[in-house]
């Protein structure tokens, strides 16, 4: 059997190396978006139009990395016919990559709002809530990427709990916006409400990433249970 295994294992080794490469590429994609999201927070809170433009410009490498990752996954599925944990991993990576790429687009959408408004010049209370919201959403997104790097099966449930903090802050932000909107131009109020919405969505994508990783590791997807019950 040893003789049979030698060439076989070499082929598997190459496959494993490619799977590792795909995982690293997906974490790298997440890091790109995370870095851009950090830039966005600074642009938002310090009314930095120049940084907002940098955020927009930095989206091209994200898109390229996303497309490249997707191609790698398709190729390995076609050539290796993966099953079981390998298949779950690759399917999950496709999903995770989509969540990351969408988050990247939301970051860019926020940056475009900053450009349109030439920066948000907010009162201190509004500024404070927005800062906390950005921090909470981006922290959650970072944890989503961590769950991918660690292949953490528990992350989905944990991140779902932590998402409550973001949702509360979004509520707080909207309440404050409703009272302060009277004193600001309509388009500014609309742009700010979009920022709140985008931050909420970025956090949601992070929770989804955690759930996809849980599925990759365990083969169990909590949401499937709910669908089957309907």
């Amino acid at each position, binding site marked *: 059997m040893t003789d049979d*295994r030698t060439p076989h294992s070499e082929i598997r080794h190459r496959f494993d190396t490619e799977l590792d490469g795909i995982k690293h590429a997906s974490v790298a994609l997440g890091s790109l978006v995370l870095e851009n999201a950090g830039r966005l927070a600074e642009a938002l809170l310090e009314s930095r139009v120049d940084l907002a433009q940098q955020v927009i410009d930095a989206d091209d490498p994200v898109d390229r990395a996303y497309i490249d990752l997707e191609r790698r996954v398709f190729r390995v599925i076609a050539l290796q016919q993966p099953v079981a944990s390998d298949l779950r991993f690759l399917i999950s990576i496709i999903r995770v990559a989509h969540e990351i790429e969408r988050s990247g687009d939301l970051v860019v959408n926020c940056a475009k709002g900053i450009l349109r408004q030439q920066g948000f010049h907010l009162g201190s209370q509004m500024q404070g809530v927005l800062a906390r919201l950005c921090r909470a959403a981006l922290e959650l997104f970072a944890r989503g990427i961590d769950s991918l790097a660690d292949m953490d099966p528990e992350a989905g449930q944990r991140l779902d709990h932590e998402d409550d903090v973001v949702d509360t802050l979004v509520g707080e932000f909207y309440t404050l916006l409703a009272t302060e909107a009277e004193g600001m131009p309509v388009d500014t109020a609309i742009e700010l409400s979009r920022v709140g919405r985008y931050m909420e969505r970025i956090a949601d994508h992070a929770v989804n990433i955690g759930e996809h990783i849980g599925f990759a590791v365990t083969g169990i997807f909590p949401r499937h249970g709910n669908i089957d019950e309907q």
Partner: protein
Amino acid sequence: MNDDRGNERAEAAARADGEGRPAARAISVGGVLRNGRPAEPSAQDIIFDVQGLRVFYGSFQAVADTTLAIREHEITALIGPSGCGKTTVLRCFNRMNDLIESARVEGTIRYHGADIYGEKVDPVEVRRRVGMVFQKPNPFPKSIYDNIAFGPRIAGFKGNMGELVEQSLVRAALWDEVKDKLKQSAYALSGGQQQRLCIARAIATSPDVLLMDEPCSSLDPIATLRIEELMIELTRDYSIIIVTHNMQQAARVSDRTAFFTVDVKETGMRTGRLVEFDATDVIFTRPNQKQTEDYITGRFG
């Protein structure tokens, strides 16, 4: 995926879920068979009930304690590395191992409740009901017609032989290709056609189970696809147990899959052992045993 977790949470809270989160019930992705039937049918569906099967060749134990149930109108695949005993187990289902002098079978295999290794059971009758298709197409050196008619003639078939031959060839999806050359030698057929002829020959004696030992290993992908389609078609009337080294084939056609491995003892004795038996989609998406996972993902050893 979830487009709006905030709204979902509100809806979940409205359903008075304690923590305001959607109630998650963890279930496996698998458990549904090829034809959409549930993975746990009733006991009446069991055609072969195998309990504690052990097979020996002299003092050498080829297969360790195997317990599994084969269901009617399903395709059951037996997979595993060379020497894992899958073909030996397959040959137990129609007592083919009786033909090997040193072979000894222990445990029970109940066919519709009756032990096929019972004292009064005629192995020839077992083989009539449980037909076999081999790895390499092995038509007799006779005409296409006589290949099909041979078995029924020996069994004393008194009906309309022409009809039986036609019916068998139709069921084996070969009739249209051979209806004008029934008197020609079976050897004139292609490999894929010869294998379908062997399937037609096997079903001519009205079995209700077909055993297939790597039936496509000598066929090209197109002929393989035809046999696979035929197998699925045949499950309307028959139950099929197939040994295959082609895991994609097991995944494509079977309802359930049994994974066997080989244990090597210090003495060098190699004994096959059933590791896992489950719905095929479970085996190929979320196997419960690490050995199964390692084998199907190509990481065994």
